């Protein structure tokens, strides 16, 4: 059985008196260790899908499973606890906590997941070493460049060793070269550790790095097996091979 499963997931939002469907009966399955890219127009529901997967929001209908846990059936508190142990986040705008140092930002997730102070610090330093920022451990995040901040965010996402990494346009706020180096780092670390990486992106190059590419269009999640064939810029791809 697949590690992540979306079963008939729908999500609607109220806009005044009207209801707007963002996701409609989405079915999908992602495997452990897989790199999934999700593409789609702005407002197509990509971030909503990530939020549902992270348990930040609940589907209007349907179920979402991660491993043996039906996260759509959990309480807010249980989803939060689940999230801290199973999901790492990488955001477009880095979202580091300005009042914490680089090292503290990274060890926060490890501490939250119940690791001892010493172990959390050791793990954080190890992750910073992996992303090449150990020498900046004591700096505050506002002293870092955009690329460095995103590397800290990657270290943070992996520090508590969660099986799933969610990335919402992680290169969207970086120049092409920096973006590529950050992507290489993220994919390398995820693959080495056998993580399921689910990424929302607008970049053809990045989508090309994924094992599978899905496109969100009018509330439907459509799969494009050959990632390289997806023209994310013009959205002219044949959508005949929808999942399942």
């Amino acid at each position: 059985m697949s590690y992540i499963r979306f079963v008939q997931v729908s999500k609607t939002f109220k806009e005044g008196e009207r209801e707007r469907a963002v996701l409609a009966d989405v079915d999908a399955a992602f495997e452990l260790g897989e790199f999934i890219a999700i593409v789609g127009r702005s407002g197509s529901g990509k971030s909503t899908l990530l939020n549902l997967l992270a348990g930040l929001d609940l589907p209007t209908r349907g179920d979402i499973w991660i491993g043996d846990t039906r996260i759509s059936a959990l309480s807010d508190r249980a989803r939060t606890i689940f999230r801290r142990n199973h999901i790492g986040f990488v955001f477009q705008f880095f979202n580091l906590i300005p009042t914490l140092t680089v090292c503290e930002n990274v060890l926060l997730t490890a501490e939250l997941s119940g690791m001892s102070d010493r172990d959390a610090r050791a793990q954080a330093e190890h992750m910073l070493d992996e992303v090449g920022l150990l020498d900046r451990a004591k700096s505050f995040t506002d002293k870092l460049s955009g690329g460095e901040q995103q590397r800290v965010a990657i270290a943070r996402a992996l520090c508590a060793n969660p099986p799933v990494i969610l990335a919402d346009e992680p290169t969207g706020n970086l120049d092409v070269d920096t973006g590529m180096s950050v992507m290489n780092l993220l994919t390398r670390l995820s693959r080495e550790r056998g993580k399921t990486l689910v990424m929302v992106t607008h970049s053809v190059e990045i989508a090309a790095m994924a094992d599978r590419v899905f496109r969100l269009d009018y509330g439907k999640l459509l799969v494009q097996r050959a990632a390289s064939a997806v023209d994310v810029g013009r959205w002219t791809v044949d959508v005949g091979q929808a999942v399942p």
Partner: protein
Amino acid sequence: MNLTLLKTGVRDALRRPWLTLLLVLSVALGVGVVVAIDLANDSAARAFNLSTEAVVGKATHQIIGGPRGVDESVYRTLRVQYGYRLSAPIVDGYVGARELNNQTLHVLGVDLFAEAPFRSYLAPQSNANASLDSFAQFFTTRGAALISADSAARFGLKVGDPLTLRVDTREHQAIIVGLLQAPNDVSSRALEGLLLTDIASAQELFDMQGHLSRIDLIATPEIAQQISAQLPDGLSLVPASEQANTVTQLTAAFQLNLTAFSLLALMVGMFLIYNTVMFNVVQRRYVLGIMRCLGVTGGQIFALILLEAAVLGTIGAILGIGVGIVLGRFTVQLVTQTINDLYFSLSVRSVEVQAPTLVKGMLLGIVAALIAAAIPASEAANVPAVTALQRSDLEDRVRRGLPSLTRIGVLLFIIGAYLIVFVQSTVIASFVGLFVGLFGIVFCVPLLTVWFMRVGARALAPLGLLGRMAARTVTGALSRTSIAIAALMIAVSVTIGVTVMIASFRSTVSNWLDQTLIADIYIAPPQTSASRTLTMDASLPERARQVAGVSSVEVYRNVTVASPDFGPVRLSAVTSSRTRSSRVYRYASGTADEVWRQVENGALIITEPFANRHHIQIPNPIFQLPTNQPANLPTVTLLTDHGAQTFRIAAVSYDYSSDQGSLLMTLDVYRRFWNDPDISSMAVYVAPNANVNQVEDAVRAALSGSIVNVQSNKALRETALVIFDRTFAITAALRVIAVVVAFIGVLSALMALQLERTRELGTLRAAGMTLPQLWRLTLLETGLMGATAGLLSIPTGLLMSLVLIYVINLRSFGWTIFFQPVPEVYVEALLVSICAALLAAIYPMQRLAHMEVAVALRSE
């Protein structure tokens, strides 16, 4: 709590030092006022208790008599005939001592040989400094006196120094023959203000030859009952604690009112804390959203915000205690002055800093911070993760919640009104009702603000875009603008309420003085304390009567007598030459003449506070059916020198001279029942064609040689109003503090708004809005907020003044106050609100002037 999470809280507080300081200051100010009032009340109470302990000692019972005291023979009979040795005679009273800066001293005339079981500090062997020699002198020297070593040191006095003691209209010489050295600090304070003489000297001092003030006893209840049964008419045996309790009860309402006002300052402080914490939460919404994404639970965030508030609240409370102790030194003087003016003689030398007061202040500060932070903390706990980081989401929810918020407000207002109107058993319920009602109005402020802003937008429409923007900004940030408006509104309405109450009270007292001070010249011994029975040379009225231009002289006797039902009560007896005006009566059982005829025939007039204090129902003429039968008033039984006598009540009069109330009867009736030929004061009526000033001078000359105050009607009125103003000095000070706290509240809210809108303001600048235009926008926004607060404070303040006048004052002190509208106060309130709000805009405007547009545009 996760250590790294804690670090975010601590560093956030350090990154926003002004905001942190504001929160700490708001707690400190609120706690400071509460602690100051508490310390003043507590110090007064402790000083009173210590002096009572020093005077009462170990006595369990006291035998007391009428105004002239207890005949000495009763003591002799008790000791010799009944052999009851655990008894001690006491002659006591108050004197002013010239060498001690005219401080009032409590003179205790004792029989040292009978004292040992009662007041151990007076036993010769326990007093190291008072040598055997000085005790020998105590019995042999005329006017020998002992005072506390501390008092002597403070005024540079030593053994052998003379003392000039003023008793009513006379002066006496005494000599210090020894100093009372207390074994510890507590006893030392107990001895403060005490002057010890032997019985004979005290009798001579107070002109009580052959009489005692009381006899102290140490007795079991059975023995006390036996002794009581043997006592002659006019004497009664009471538990020793009863006197002290009765006296302390007098000030209870006064002190409760002060405490309530101090809590009001804390309440305004709570708005400030709410505002500050809410601002902090809004500023950190983005970070809190990230934390929620990373797996921090809502509960952890709630705990984090509350913990921060508790830590800052604790720091604020510690500072507040310091502020309270400093403020306490001033408030204790004001409180003591009022107690001396209105209640009893009290000397409070220092502020007693007691642990319970400090703990109470500390807890109040922390709890206030926690309560005020609870709503923002729950707001923070419910911050959705990254998807909804904008504040507009919060504002949407506030706007959606407006109807429920307003419904809660209306419900709270109704509960408050119910408590005020229908729960009449205790004044505490009225205060709770006032607080709940005020909270109810606060809950309605957001909706009212939206309405006001609609009107405001229309009124400012001629100013174009700026006018419309200003009103929309206030509505757009309703979660905090409404709180700032509410804080300012509460503070200004407190000002209106208290000002209208004091003005109404003052005008009522002034009118009452017009009605009651009908004589032209008043003559009385100098009064050093409100509770003393003054006695004046009985030959003085006749000397005054001889002065040319004097048409008549009225004589008064003011004493404290015992009532089996009501305890010690104040009784005024007056010569019955003139009928009182019908306007001085709250209720009369007939016309003014009929009432006076009844009084001449032995009935009493009771004052309104007396009726209130003793729960005597006053018939309400408005609701009374028109019958010829006067309403039934209860009777009053008094212990006279001829046994218990019951008196009918003919009328209830307004009276604002004290809140303990008194009884009035004619001097003839008084002397029929009490063997007391003394007089206390007199009033002189000047012949219609005589010059009052000349007669006053002539009377003063005729009475020379006696220490009396001769005051014209006008001077006496002025003195009364000076005392009145002094009594309300604390209230006025608290009013100022409330406005200061509210001002800081508006300032913090505006600062918050400006900081949040940095990007928006930068965009406006980039789009071509000039600095003066932005300033105008800021001033319009703050002006609108101030005007809203001012307009809302008028009905709120009016309601508060009505509650203070018709409910709280009446229930606390028994005074009917006639409402005075004082229209200028409302205009002032509106102006104060707008000015406070405009002043609060200065700092944000300064920030605007230094804003770097490029940086502002990048601001998150």
